[in-house]
């Protein structure tokens, strides 16, 4: 058995291509390097450097300006309802355009519950899809599955809404609903009449809508984990599941949390599809079958026909509430990322 030649003997060591004279000239203070001369000939200069930095700063500041502008306008336009209801607006249940009694609580509740339920359904599914594609999938299946997930992300939300009305609602009413009542009725989450529309249906359609975003981002993040990590874990005698858990998931957890947050962001603001199946009834539902309402839906529904200044102002304050809910949820998410990642790089726990 002949021993294999070491790589060093096959690949010649990299050699310096620059002649000694050039090296010395580059070192001298008076004359700039060849690279510098070339860049100067292309018009690069200190001025361009500073100009570029200033331009980028301006771009970054525009984000602050846009957010600040939206906030100021929302507050200004809703000052009538702010003055009338104060902070009570956000905790009050009641939405009566006739008597002019407005409270945002049922909408905030509906938005948060439907979005969180959607995450509860979508995140495990999305993680499963991503793990399968990056770690377990036979090469032939990889492209079609990836393509289909991305296709799901490209479908407009009104199409999801129509599909939900004509397919998901009857399934919920006739099959899934009775099934849930039979086997999970003891949780008291599935009480009351089930007409197929309501919080649960809205959550399911939201879950389907955010699934492709979370899974395709998670897939990209997992693919970015260096193979050396996987090989190292496997070399230590880990099983495939241990390799995925320790080598892949641990390394990509920050990115995964980020992907989940993007999905949550879409779920919070989703309007059309939710409006079509949530039932649009502004009460705090006691059951997942009961109709609910979300912040985005009530604006889309009532803004164009809102008569009266207080009514309009209350609707704009709903927009303010949505803005604040998004900020608070994102802040909590940042805190979570921080809490998860405090403990430095991947380790076995």
């Amino acid at each position: 058995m002949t021993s294999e030649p070491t790589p060093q003997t096959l690949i010649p060591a990299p050699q310096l291509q620059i002649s000694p004279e050039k090296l010395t000239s580059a070192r001298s203070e008076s004359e700039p390097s060849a690279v510098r001369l070339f860049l100067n000939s292309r018009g690069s200069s200190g001025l361009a450097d500073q100009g570029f930095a200033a331009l980028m700063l301006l771009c970054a500041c525009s984000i602050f300006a846009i957010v600040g502008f939206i906030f100021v306008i929302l507050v200004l336009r809703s000052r009538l309802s702010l003055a009338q209801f104060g902070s009570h607006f956000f905790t009050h249940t009641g939405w009566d355009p006739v008597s002019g009694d407005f409270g945002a609580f049922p909408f905030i509740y509906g938005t948060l519950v439907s979005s969180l339920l959607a995450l509860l359904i979508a995140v495990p599914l999305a993680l499963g899809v991503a793990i399968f594609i990056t770690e377990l999938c036979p090469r032939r299946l990889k492209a079609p599955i990836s393509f289909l997930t991305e296709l799901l992300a490209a479908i407009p939300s009104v199409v999801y809404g129509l599909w939900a009305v004509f397919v998901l609602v009857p399934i919920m009413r006739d099959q899934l609903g009775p099934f849930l009542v039979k086997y999970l009725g003891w949780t008291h989450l599935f009480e009351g009449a089930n007409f197929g529309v309501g919080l649960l249906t809205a959550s399911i359609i939201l879950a389907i809508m955010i699934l492709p975003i979370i899974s395709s981002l998670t897939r990209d993040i997992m693919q970015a984990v260096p193979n050396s990590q996987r090989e190292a874990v496997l070399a230590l005698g880990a099983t495939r599941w241990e390799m995925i858990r320790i080598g892949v998931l641990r390394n990509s957890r920050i990115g995964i949390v980020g992907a989940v947050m993007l999905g949550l962001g879409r779920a919070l603001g989703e309007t059309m599809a939710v409006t079509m199946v949530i039932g649009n009834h502004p009460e705090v539902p006691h059951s997942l079958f009961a109709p609910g309402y979300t912040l985005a839906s009530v604006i889309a529904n009532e803004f164009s026909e809102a008569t009266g200044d207080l009514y309009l102002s209350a609707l704009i304050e709903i927009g303010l509430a949505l803005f604040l809910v998004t900020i608070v949820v994102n802040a909590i998410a940042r805190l979570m990322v921080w809490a998860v990642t405090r403990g430095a790089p991947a380790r076995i726990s």
Partner: protein
Amino acid sequence: MRLSFLLAGVVGLSSIAASAQNINGAGATFPYPIYSRWFSEFAKVDSNVHINYQSIGSGGGIRQVSEGTVDFGATDGPMNDDQIKGAKIKTIHIPTVLGAVVPVYNLPGLNKELNFSPDVIADIYLGKISKWNDPRLAKDNPGVNLPADAILPVYRSDGSGTTYIFTDFLSKVSSEWAQKVGKNTSVKWPTGIGQKGNEGVAGMVRQSPHAFGYVELIYAAQNKMPFGAVRNASGQFVRASTEGVTEAAAAAAKSMPADYRVSITNAQGAGSYPIASFTWLLIPEHATDPAKAKAMQAFLGWMLDHGEAEAASMTYAPLPKAVQDSVRKTIQSIH
């Protein structure tokens, strides 16, 4: 000297503008199909006038014409006193056509059209009648085998003139409704689920067994949906039709106020359909541009002479003769 120069320039410009008049309006969605047909036909009559209409909703129409953003507005519910008081631009209401709202339902295996008493409809939406075989429903429909299933009330979740007309009717026929809920483009529904638009309500009712809802007559007619008859103030069960709606308007025309802000729901008369309403154009009393006022006046005259006759073919009910005559007098006052 310079001022007169400027004035001459302005006059010159406005005379150019007068040769091709652009009039912008916005408002109600319900009459949008017939308005857009009228405006395009009127452009053939007078090629110098182009009327643009955006169906942004009655609320938006009232706001924009009151602030002077558009040249005219349109609304399905008349402006209330507060709105009139707060408006920067004072407008007059001109009734154009009539619409009606019909009850729709989904009862599998039923091949007979149902009758509804006004108080029964109110109590369905108040949650007091929750089963299809309720004795009061059975009394209105002798010989019909009504199932013992729960009723799913469906309402319009978006603000709409349809909801205004419907809740206006319910407020008249049920004191409990007037007290607890009231009338508006959107109200606090005691029970049921909301769906967006006529198509949303119709879609939900069509595919949910035991659902009950309300849609515009024109929508039900164009989509060949079965709908129920409603008992009117004279005690007759009437199925909605353009004739029945015009008859209700004729009955109300006798007590028509000068500003045309009148509700004709629950009108008297044996053939009157009770859930009906005018839809109005909102025309500024004093137009900023006299040429625009002239053009608008010409359009309204044409509408009475030719437009009304086309209404029925598009399932809108035309104005009764008496109302047409008084509108003809009113439009003379536009200047």
